[in-house]
């Protein structure tokens, strides 16, 4: 029998992150904890999330299990909880039962074979920047009403996020000293669709730092962790396909 007890904060983070990409997902549970990989229907964005079993209040899983769920339905359950609640999830036949305080509710599990787990493409970039989430969020917001794409530029001594349309433009420039870490030997640049980034950053409420890796016209990887504690919280990475300029 699969039975999990999780804090509302952790569950909300998982659901918010999944919601940036998909409306259905398969949660994989094994001896290490929870893993979810999901790609959006367009195959433009992907998310890979992990939560250690130690981050659960209770974690009772026989070897391995898979729970295919409707993310919207999970969102509905989260709305019922107060911020201090813990949620108990029990898999019963084809249903997932939730207990939160005085409320219990169950939702149907989806057919495991109908929700596919994507293969994560092998992506590797030497250059990366680690910056405060708030800084990136400001840069993205500045670009929001300018264009639907944003160009990220990394140089050995600075990081830029630039957006331009025929009539408007915006740019955020962060010097190496403003950044937590910058590892870049030659200039790299690549453009990305802005809407996915805005949604991701918004869903990373408790993350403080983000690690962005990319190279010229190449997928962007954003590594995140929602807690500073080594064990606690949700960690993972987000991949986003570039927008090419011909």
């Amino acid at each position: 029998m699969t039975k999990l007890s999780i804090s509302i904060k952790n569950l909300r983070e998982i659901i918010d992150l999944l919601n940036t990409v998909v409306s259905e997902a398969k949660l994989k549970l094994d001896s290490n904890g929870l893993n979810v990989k999901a790609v959006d229907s367009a195959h433009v964005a992907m998310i890979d999330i992990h939560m250690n079993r130690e981050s659960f209040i209770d974690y009772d899983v026989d070897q391995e299990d898979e729970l295919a769920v409707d993310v919207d339905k999970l969102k509905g359950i989260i709305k019922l909880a107060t911020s201090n609640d813990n949620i108990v999830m029990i898999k019963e036949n084809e249903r997932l039962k939730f207990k939160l305080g005085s409320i219990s509710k169950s939702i149907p599990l989806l057919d495991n074979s109908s929700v596919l787990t994507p293969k994560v493409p092998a992506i590797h970039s030497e250059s990366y920047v680690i910056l405060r989430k708030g800084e990136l969020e400001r840069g993205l917001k500045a670009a929001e009403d300018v264009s639907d794409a944003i160009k990220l530029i990394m140089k050995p001594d600075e990081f830029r996020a630039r957006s331009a349309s025929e009539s408007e433009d915006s740019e955020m420039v962060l010097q190496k000293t403003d950044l937590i870490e910058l590892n870049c030997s030659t200039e790299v640049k690549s453009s990305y669709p802005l809407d996915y980034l805005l949604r991701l950053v918004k869903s990373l409420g408790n993350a403080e730092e983000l690690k962005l890796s990319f190279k010229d016209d190449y997928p962007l990887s954003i590594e995140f962790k929602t807690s500073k504690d080594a064990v606690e919280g949700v960690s993972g990475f987000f991949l986003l396909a570039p927008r090419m300029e011909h």
Partner: protein
Amino acid sequence: MVLLFSIFSDYLNRMTDTSKRLELKQILSSLFIESGTDLKKVIYLIQGKIAPDYEGKETGIAEKTVIEILSDISGNDPEIILRKLGKIGDIGSLTQELMNSNKQELLFKDIMTVDKVFNTLKLISEKSGPDSTKIKKDLMKNLLLSGSADEAKYIVRIALGKLRLGVADSTILMGLVDAFHFEDISQDVESYYNFNPDLAGISEILFKNDREEIKNFGPKPMIPFKVMLAERLQSIPSILEKMGGKAAFEYKYDGLRAQVHIKDGTVKIFSRGNEETTGQFPDVVEAVKSQRKIKDGILDGEMVPYNPATGEIFPFQEISRRRGRKNDLSTSSAKSDNIMKFEVVSEEGKEIQRAGNKTIEDEIPITLFLFDIVYLNGKDLSRKGYSDRRKALQRTIKETDKIKLAQRIESSDPAELEAFFELSIEDGCEGIVAKSLDKKSIYRAGARGWNWIKYKRDYQSMINDTFDLAVVGAFWGHGRRAKTYGALLLATYNREKGIFETFCKLGTGFTDDVLFSLPRIFSGSVVPGKPNNVDSILIPDVWIYPDKVMEVKGAEITVSPIHTCNKDALGKGLALRFPRFTGRWRDDKKPENATNNIEILEIYKNQKKSL
């Protein structure tokens, strides 16, 4: 064996490049052989569909959504894309162009096969719920970005129902017969199709080489078929001559053709175009259900507005009021009687419009006048002669106010028949239909043959009949008509060649409501160049893909150097003089059911004789 979508789109390119039927048949035949187990999907995709017509499944992708996707992909503003679309005219070509410019990449790509495209389009059609718009959009985006610009062009056209290859069903059928070597029983294949017009379903049978199934063609309850049609002649003596001196004659009711299917207590009504209209006629459905002698059956008849108390038949337009307002031209025009009113059913298919406290059933009572029965309690009657079928109909049907048998006599006397004809007109009918008493007078689905001959009269014109013509082009107007079309280019259908041949330019008979709405009515059908399935010498300002049929009257048929109707047979074309729109849009007819060139030739010859 998997068919790559790139190979499929190469075939589509080749089909677009020719309008010759034999060449098309060859191309299709090679494609079908290469399709392997993807054949069924290939057949649907060629027709720009994902399921048979009677299932009514569409992708549910709107042009607006495609424009948003193109905007996302190309980085162009939707406004700019719309402007470009205005110039290019075809969203498929525009997609192809934009895919070559700025482009969103994907994290990974699946191999683009026919299977993947078909299944994704089907998935898109099935998605519903709060997030479905975004998911549909993303799935579509994935399809467009996974293949080449050429593939994207066709995917967009298919998704929007605008593939418009101009390939007739009969050509696809010919390709199938050729690919799977059914030439020896090609007639049976055609009959099978006419009783079960689902080319994808037939392709499976041919692929499996199931010859027995094909030979056992016939009607099946709940599968709408192509109804039998009548030829036409200009006089009663000529009809009698054609039918061997004696025939049965029935009233030709002016209503909506209805094929009524009954199975295990369920009743469904389909139009002549095989669209289900059950939801609009709950009273007829109930009346059919109360017929005790039919467990399973298929009836053929005409639904007519009829007052049983007085025996009065109302004009055809009254029946249109039962159909909804989905495509009405405007609120004011909706009141006008002579305007097309497309059918509409509420989501549940049960909507009944209310007028005051009365339901529309009370206001416009409909009676179903039956004239044929092709299936009864497990038995196929279609291969029995007309007389036997009529007897079966009389034995089976209990006449009520809602269900009647068509008025009928058998006679060899022209005077008696002339009187019967006059009576039919007096009773509010269009005329009469002669039916052969020969034992070989079987029910031939989809065929217009000499076993049934119609005789209609229009007192004002030299020609005794109206024509149902497909619209293939339009000319911009001048003066008062500067912002609308001044004339439409209309065509007859050549079944042998599978193409539309022009027959007249129509500029009169429109109410102002219709006239000034013409560009809007045809906006979804405008194409950038001459459709592949149209033969025309005239070059209109706007080409229109033939998918709307209008009823037209004229004064006479003349030889014309500028029209193409029957040009092959006569060297010059035939044209209709003084054409005039009757006000009736034949939205119940598919363009391939427009008046055909053989009928025109027959009328032309008769007209010459009478002079």
